[in-house]
Structure formats: C-alpha cells, structure tokens
C-alpha cells in the first residue's frame, strides 16, 4: 500500500526507526511571547531610507512601528476595495 510513496518529500524512516514504539510524542513546549500568540509576522525587504522614514514617522506620532504598519495595511486594503482588518 505505497502507491504514492514516490511522491512524498519526506522519505519514510528506515525499518529500525519504524519499529520504535508507535505512541504519540510529547508536544514540544516552545515559549511564545504573549504579544505574539495567535498572530503572524508579515515582513519585507525595503530601502533603509523607507525603514528610517517609517520609524521616524511612528516616533513622531507616538506610535509603535507595528501600529503604523497596521494603519498602512488597512489603508491599502481600503484602496483596493477590501475591508480593513484593523488589528
């Protein structure tokens, strides 16, 4: 019953490993900062000038860079006729 095994990216473990006890492994506890729980990163590579301008703009308005980015993304969503998410 390995008709499609050739299509798998991850090759099956060898026999010795396969014979290991088939029990669910403990779930690894990776500490996630509370501010990142349930959120995901959006990133991009830009000119240093843009980075500086964004940081400066955020600072000038008493915002975090993330707040500023959230505002910018909502603006661009509206521009393209999508609903803003706003968080």
């Amino acid at each position, binding site marked *: *019953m*390995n*008709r*499609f*095994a050739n*299509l*798998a*990216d*991850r090759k099956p*473990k060898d026999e010795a490993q*396969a014979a290991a006890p*088939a029990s*669910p492994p403990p779930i690894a506890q990776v500490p996630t900062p509370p501010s990142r729980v349930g959120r*995901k990163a959006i990133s991009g590579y830009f000119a240093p000038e843009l980075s500086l301008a964004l940081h400066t703009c955020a600072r000038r308005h008493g915002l975090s860079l993330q707040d500023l980015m959230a505002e910018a993304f909502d603006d661009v969503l509206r521009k393209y006729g999508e609903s803003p998410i706003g968080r």
Partner: protein
Amino acid sequence: MTTPSHSHTQTIAIISQKGGAGKTTLAIHLAAAAARAGRVSLLIDTDPQASASQWAEWRKGAPPEVIDSAPPRIPAKIAAAAAQGAELIVIDTPPHADLAASKAAECADLVLIPCRPSAFDLAAMRTTIRLVELLARPAFVVFTAGPPHAPHIYADARELVTGFGGQTCPIILPDRAAYRHAVAAGQTVFELDPDGKAAGEIEQLHMWACEQLHMSTRSQSQAHERKSA
C-alpha cells in the same frame, strides 16, 4: 485560474484559518471513507506539524495513503497522483497559512471549511470564505466539534455563514470522543466503532461530498471488477 479536474481524479481541500476546527480529523476520515468505498484515495498533508503523516506512520501504511507536500508543489503532486490512479485526493492544510490554503483551494474541485459553531471561529471563517470566493471554488462550511444536540446553535451559525455569502454543508460533525480515541490509536472511527454515530456521520458526509463532485456513491466493487477484467 488553474483548472482543477484531472478527468477521473477529484480533489477536496480542507481549509480553515482557525486551528482546532478538526481539519486533520476531517481530512483523514474523508480519505478513509473513500478508501473504504473502494476508491484509490490519497491524503496530501501540507501542515508542517505533519499530524496526518504522523497518524499514517502509526497505522503502518494501512489505507488511506498519506504523503506530505510543500504548498507550491501541490499542483504537481496532484497531477502525478492522478496519473498514478488516484481517484480522490484530500488536501489537509495548516491553520493561518495563506499560501497553503490558497494553493490547496486553487487545485480543488471542492473546498470544505470545518468550523466550530462558536463566535470566534465563525469570525475567522469569514476570511476563509473570502479567500475561496476570490478563487471561485465551490466551498461549504462544515460545522464540526460542536455539541451534538444544539439545533439553535447550528441554525444561528448557518444564518451567519449565509450572511457572509457562504454555503453550509447539511451534514454536521459534532464532537465525538470516537475521533480522539481513533486518531490517537492510528485508526479511523470506522475501525474503532463502525456502527457508532461518528462513523455514520462521516459516511453521510462522504456521500454528500461525492454528490457534490458528481462521483458515484455506490461501493466501488465494480471498479475492482473492471481492473481484474
């Protein structure tokens, strides 16, 4: 737009932005129901957590077969599996994965969006519905993991989905302990308790999905006869 259908191969994508809606459980069981009906079924696991692949390892190669895939390779794998005789392909996707979800939906003949009938899940499901709308794929929200006897909850949830412009699957898969026991043992509910409620509901869902895909809902014994002839 990518054309999904490979003549005899039908593909179902299971997507949902929210975790814990039972994507993998649904994917495993749909593929298993198809295998049980005598079809060559394949589950493509695009979740980096590889839950479905882990489950397949526990069951030591018993059908349905599970292979992994990076999202960009989904279309190529579907084409290759179709050429190798796959009849039903189910694609499981991770939560919060725009690329995997959109790639899977793009390749699918039918998209199922498992969703708990809870306010948080319903809100997140709105995003998923918009994604499949953009890709113009037939998509249905399947209510999962909710209470078995709560008609009002499901009626309200259906109304909300309809309000978002989505469609709902008439079959509900309420929370049943059988799923947890079966999956943890590398089984399906068909193996754990073939006459149980969970098995009955999965079978109904499978029949309904076959109807949506215009696949025969009969047992595929004839297909075997054809092969041996």
